[in-house]
């Protein structure tokens, strides 16, 4: 009877150690994945911010590439992280839509005057009377 209890106890301890080991491994992997994703996301943000600027664009592309590579290194043997990094390398550099030309912007909030308001007298008069009226 005592021998049976001893065996059951041994099995229980082994199970506990096994579970602890699994938990420890998965936490480390998760942390590595998170680090890698954060760096990639940061690089994407930087690239977006710099995309409009020609000079900075190249730096952003370099940063994206460098960190994608770093992500692969950091992930080490993690195949998911490697796939993600490879996909990022293939993805085109994000670009910001060019802002509309100045003329178009002016049109959006521009003048409503289809006809210049009827005027008598010079534009540079010392006194201008604006008459607001209807005809009825």
């Amino acid at each position, binding site marked *: 009877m005592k021998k049976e209890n001893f065996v059951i106890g041994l099995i229980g301890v082994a199970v506990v150690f096994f579970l602890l080991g699994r938990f420890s491994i998965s936490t480390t992997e998760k942390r590595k994945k998170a680090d890698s994703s954060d760096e990639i996301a940061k690089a994407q943000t930087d690239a977006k911010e710099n995309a409009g600027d020609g000079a900075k664009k190249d730096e952003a592309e370099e940063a994206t590439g460098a960190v994608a590579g770093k992500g692969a290194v950091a992930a080490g043997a993690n195949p998911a992280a490697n796939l993600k990094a490879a996909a990022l390398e293939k993805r085109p550099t994000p670009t910001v839509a060019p802002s509309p030309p100045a003329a178009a912007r002016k049109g959006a*909030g*521009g*003048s*409503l*005057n*289809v*006809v210049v*308001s*009827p*005027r*008598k*007298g*010079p*534009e*540079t*008069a*010392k*006194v*201008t*009377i*604006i*008459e*607001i*009226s*209807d*005809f*009825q």
Partner: protein
Amino acid sequence: MAVVFKHNPLGFHKQAMPAALASMAAGKQGKFWEYHDKMFADQKGINPANLTKWATELGLDMAAFAKDSKDGALRKQIENEQRASVALGQRGTPAFLINGKALSGAQPFDKFKTIIEAELKAADAAIAGGTPLAQVHNVRVRANLAAKASVYIDSLIGGKLAKAAPKPKPKPRPVDRTVWKVTVDDHNPIKGNKDALVTIVEWSDYQ
């Protein structure tokens, strides 16, 4: 001196908007003031038939006049001028802004004269102080209208869309809970029985 005309076709003047549009259509052919004079010479005669007749009398291109009289962009311009006028506190017609100084309603000549002379003096002082002639109007408008100057300059001069003025909230009237006893005397004109179960007391005038 300069006079600039802006529209404020009041809603309860049914012919005011068609008349404003017709005047702008005439203005596109360089005949605004002539058309303006015809309408003010016969204000009571403003109707669709006369709007066409006056345009014909002025020798306007009638096809263009008819098309422009229905032009949505002209209507938008008129409505914007109307909104700007309300935003500047000028709800009735006619209203005048003399370098931004308001004069409402049909006023005697002397009132105009007083303001115009004061503004000429102020304009001369501004010029003497180094203000370029082209800037005098803006400077005087800012002095006379203060916070509302941007509405004037943007909407009435720049033609930008004026914001609609917020409608004033009606103040709630205090409820008078007094109970009045209405006596019906022998000297009151009465129809029916003095001891009727229901008596209607009518207050009225004859106009």
